[in-house]
């Protein structure tokens, strides 16, 4: 696990984003400035765990994945809109290629993202699966 991953592990483990208490807007990844009301008041921008569920807005299936993910092909990647309106990109797991579709409901799961090597550390984080 890299130092930067360790520093932001709650972001990957629990989808910790931000809420602006001025205008109630929510963000992921976390923000220092609210892009809705432009507030920079640190006491008003708080950490917040994002909802566990959402819907698929768009998706793609990768057959030529990034280095380190070769064993995972075909890899399903989706743009997801969480129940609070926040959008993020995530891998969809535990489903056949034919089952994934725009508009389907998904829920967050905690999974291994990658291993540095056989003797290295394991990186964990969020993925989604159909529900």
């Amino acid at each position, binding site marked *: 696990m890299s130092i930067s991953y360790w520093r932001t*592990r*709650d972001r990957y*483990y*629990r989808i910790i984003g931000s809420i602006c208490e001025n205008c109630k807007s929510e963000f992921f990844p976390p923000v220092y400035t609210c892009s809705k009301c432009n507030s920079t008041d640190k006491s008003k921008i708080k950490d917040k*765990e994002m909802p566990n569920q959402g819907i698929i807005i768009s998706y793609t299936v990768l057959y030529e994945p990034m280095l380190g993910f*070769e*064993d*995972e092909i075909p890899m399903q990647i989706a743009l997801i809109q969480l129940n609070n309106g926040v959008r993020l990109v995530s891998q969809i*797991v*535990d489903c*056949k290629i034919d089952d994934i579709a725009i508009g389907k409901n998904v829920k967050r*799961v*905690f*999974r*291994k*993202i990658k291993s540095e090597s056989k003797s290295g*550390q*394991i990186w*964990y984080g969020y*993925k989604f699966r159909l529900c």
Partner: protein
Amino acid sequence: MKTKTKVSITGYAGYIPKLRLPTSEIAQIWKGGGSGPNKAKSVANFDEDITTMSVEAARHAIIMANNPDIGAVFVGSESKPYAVKPTSTIVAQALGIHKTLAADFEFACKAGTEAMQVITGLIGSGMINNGIALGVDTAQGRPGDSLEYTASSGAAAFVLSSENNHGLAYVEASTSFVSDTGDFWRRQGESYPRHLSRFTGDPAYFFHVESSVRTLLEEINAKPTDFTYAVFHQPNPKFPLEVAKRLGFTKEQLEVGLLNPEIGNPYSASSPLGLIATLDVAKPGDKILLASFGSGAGSDAFSIIVEDNILNKRKNIVPLRQQIDDNIEINYSTYTKLRGILNK
């Protein structure tokens, strides 16, 4: 063993990976046909291990328990992803819990009930108010070995608590019986366990389970007919039925919690998942016997009494049966790739 104050179960959840390997696939490769003693076994996907399964089970158990302050996160397993680095701290971090005890337990297939017993003691002594005990494994079986048919994956989580008004059941008493018996082991650095075949029966499983259950029955002055349900460790479909018969329990008392035919033996999660399947259908007032077995060897036996709250608490959970039925079948080739046996 009884605690001085009442210790309740306020939440529970099981996690069974979606993938299933029919044992006919294994038999086809190694015997040319037929099947194993069980129909299928659950298999962890490429990105699942005991940490991920623990987090999933724990998260749902804590929700069922109404998000209490957790004072202990204990993970019982024999398939830790790290030889040195606790799984329990990763689980605690993923749950957002920090002011807590955290430890990994290992006692072959009874590490989960061991964790339950220790948390029961910590709560009973007043040291903590709530704790979460996990039994979880991605069990290993050497290709071609008889273990390969049953060794499976799964997780079970229980939130135990002193807050008895939230209890869905309570621990009436528990016992433990151990001896130095080398029926099954895995040396440091080895990928697969070894076992002594038939020796795993009478001197190991049957002797220890019978001993812990008989001690429990004596301690609480109960007889098998006092229990609505009984759950025994399930290394295969046959052993729990046989030990039940020897102890005077009926097949009907076991049926609900007997999951081995459909998911195999997820080691530390085996009997705890059987308890979860039982709690999913139990009624207030029902008495449940839970008896684990861990090679090496030992057995923990619990008497658990179901309370009225279970009816309300069950309304918002997904029954374990649904996870068992919602599955994707894989073939032996896929299985070997997922288990790291087949590499590029």
